[in-house]
């Protein structure tokens, strides 16, 4: 048989397209099977690409850990003050988590592939963080042995955030292409370049005080009652490949 005309080519493409579209009926199994086959190679490529844990990356991670401690201390300070006022003890938050490794990163969709899935107890919506408590994103599609994580920069990800050490809160929203914005901030508040944005409990999307990003540039439209800022996501500096999926917040 010869594909002698564009009509034949179009027919061939249509037939294969119908076959491919029908894979949507069991897409999870197909993807899981294919990822299982290619995960050793993906893991190998990822390690080669990241060049292992370089000194710079370790130092960055330590800086984030220290900032996280600072955030925790400030949180504790505020909490102590509230406790003094209310004379009521509060149990600090603790996480139960699963250790996971990144296999691949899709640059077109602001998502990453990790090596834990339904079998290990991962569910859609669970937060993913680095060892230094920098927020990576939340679990999107869950397969049997793998999961896709929507990064903070993914356009579908939005949550409430606040500025460390200031009474400023707003909405963090992914802009795509590894960018995010901090918007709906009251114009009366003094938002500044370099401010660190962390998560809040509001909306119950993420646990509070996870590091998100640093204010990079401010924008304010006179007609807009709010100001907004572009965030530099701290997760972009963390390239260690080891992450944690928070399964339970106690």
């Amino acid at each position: 048989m010869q594909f002698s005309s564009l009509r034949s080519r179009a027919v061939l493409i249509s037939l294969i397209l119908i076959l491919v579209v029908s894979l949507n009926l069991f897409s999870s199994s197909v993807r899981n099977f294919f990822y299982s086959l290619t995960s050793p190679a993906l893991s190998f490529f990822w390690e080669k690409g990241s060049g292992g844990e370089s000194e710079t990356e370790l130092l960055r991670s330590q800086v984030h850990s220290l900032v996280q401690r600072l955030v925790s201390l400030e949180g504790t300070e505020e909490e102590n003050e509230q406790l003094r006022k209310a004379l009521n003890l509060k149990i600090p938050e603790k996480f139960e988590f699963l250790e996971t490794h990144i296999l691949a990163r899709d640059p077109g969709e602001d998502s990453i592939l990790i090596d834990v899935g339904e079998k290990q107890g991962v569910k859609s919506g669970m937060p993913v963080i680095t060892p230094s408590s920098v927020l990576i994103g939340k679990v999107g599609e869950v397969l049997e042995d793998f999961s896709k994580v929507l990064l903070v920069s993914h356009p579908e990800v939005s949550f409430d955030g606040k500025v460390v050490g200031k009474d400023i809160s707003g909405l963090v929203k992914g802009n795509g292409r590894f960018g995010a914005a901090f918007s709906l901030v009251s114009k009366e508040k003094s938002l500044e370049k370099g401010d660190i944005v962390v998560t809040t409990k509001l909306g119950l999307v993420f646990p509070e005080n996870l590091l998100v990003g640093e204010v990079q540039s401010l924008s304010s439209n006179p007609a807009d009652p709010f100001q907004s800022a572009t965030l530099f996501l701290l997760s972009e500096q963390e390239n260690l490949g080891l992450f944690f999926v928070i399964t339970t917040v106690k």
Partner: protein
Amino acid sequence: MASSKHLSTISFMEYDAPSFSFGSFFKTALVLFIVFTFLIMAQISFLAHFTVFGFVPHVVLFLYILIHIFEKPTSGLGTVSALVAGILLDLYSSKPFGFYTALLSAGSLAITIIKSYYVRFPHF
């Protein structure tokens, strides 16, 4: 051949595109599947660490375009590469199956039509 007819007298479906057989289709598809699988794995796990002017190089798309520019009219390589690259991108994507296959196949048909009527590249 269509090139001997006047453009306005034929529809694109009547245009006699270069032929390729089922046998060569599967052979080409297998080779391209291996090449594109390697490239896509390298892209999402290795090249994801590097950026050129803020963009991660899309080697799959780059090869797809190269094939379409330099393919011999008789090879049918463009159509096969569109299908194989589309299926592989669908496998690694969060989008529904068929999204990239449809996109790249449509692109392939469009490039074939444009090349057939308006462009003449030297073939090596």
